[in-house]
């Protein structure tokens, strides 16, 4: 499957479907290397079925989100790569 390595900004569409906050300026802390940074400054790997946000410092997967488009629409949101998300 085609996968595109893009900026965290490219994950904003699908993440904004589940978060009611501006997500690209939220700060995420990586569980692996401890780096913190805005979601928009991380790397997004985007495919048709879902998106993986990786730490721009160590490449650890921070957030994985998969969407099932059949009705009812479902999301799988895996946040175990982050220690916290700081939302404004």
């Amino acid at each position: 499957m085609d996968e595109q390595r893009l900026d965290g900004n490219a994950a904003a569409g699908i993440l904004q479907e589940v978060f009611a906050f501006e997500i690209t300026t939220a700060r995420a802390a990586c569980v692996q290397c401890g780096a913190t940074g805005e979601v928009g400054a991380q790397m997004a790997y985007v495919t048709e079925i879902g998106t993986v946000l990786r730490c721009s410092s160590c490449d650890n997967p921070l957030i994985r989100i998969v969407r099932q488009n059949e009705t009812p629409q479902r999301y799988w949101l895996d946040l175990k790569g982050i220690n916290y998300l700081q939302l404004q």
Partner: protein
Amino acid sequence: MAGTVRRLTWQVGEVVEASPQTPRTKSLFLELPEWPGHRAGQHVDVRLTAEDGYQAERSYSIASAPESGRLELVVERLDDGEVSPYLADELHEGDGLELRGPIGGWFAWDAKEGGPLLLVAGGSGIAPLMAMARHRKAAGSDTPVRLLYSSRSYAEIIFRQELETLAADDETLEVIQTLTRSRPEGWRGYDRRIDGEMLREVAYPPEEHPLAFVCGPTPLVETVATALVDLGHDPNRVKTERFGPTGG
């Protein structure tokens, strides 16, 4: 941006104008039933649905200023693309287009944030940076701006006339062009791909703490971002928007 408590919803906009920009690009102007307003630099997701229900989504940067009444998107025809040939060739005035947005507050600039502003674009990566330049003008801002723009040829410079006019009317806005494949006779801009040396000449010195926005094909964006950091710019003030290797 604080307090953006709004779920993204799809809506159908109407194409009120479709006008060619360059041989491979077109500007689509849209009117939307519900538009909460956007910030310069944000994008929309566009969704096409085939008769069998198959859907394809792509992101397009908004080129119009927040102050404009219509939403302008720049679409570039990629011959093996899934979405862009439809947008560039099949979509006409009066047609509907499903989209949602605005999306992404990170790659965005408000005039009140100041600068100086370093904008670096490759090809259709000019779109969100054009929104910033237009917003700056509409807001009456005198934030110094340098825009370094790489195109393949003179005919492929998107917004060429408007950029010339913007720069001619404003001493604090400089537009520096480079053409990578062919140049017209007497061309006075750069004649190669953007590199560290070019950025050293064009960018504000790191001591001035410029805010940089870089948008275009992935190789260009990575070259520019790496070179800026090597020149001593603060990585936290270099914001990037990769279009990917092909877009689509």
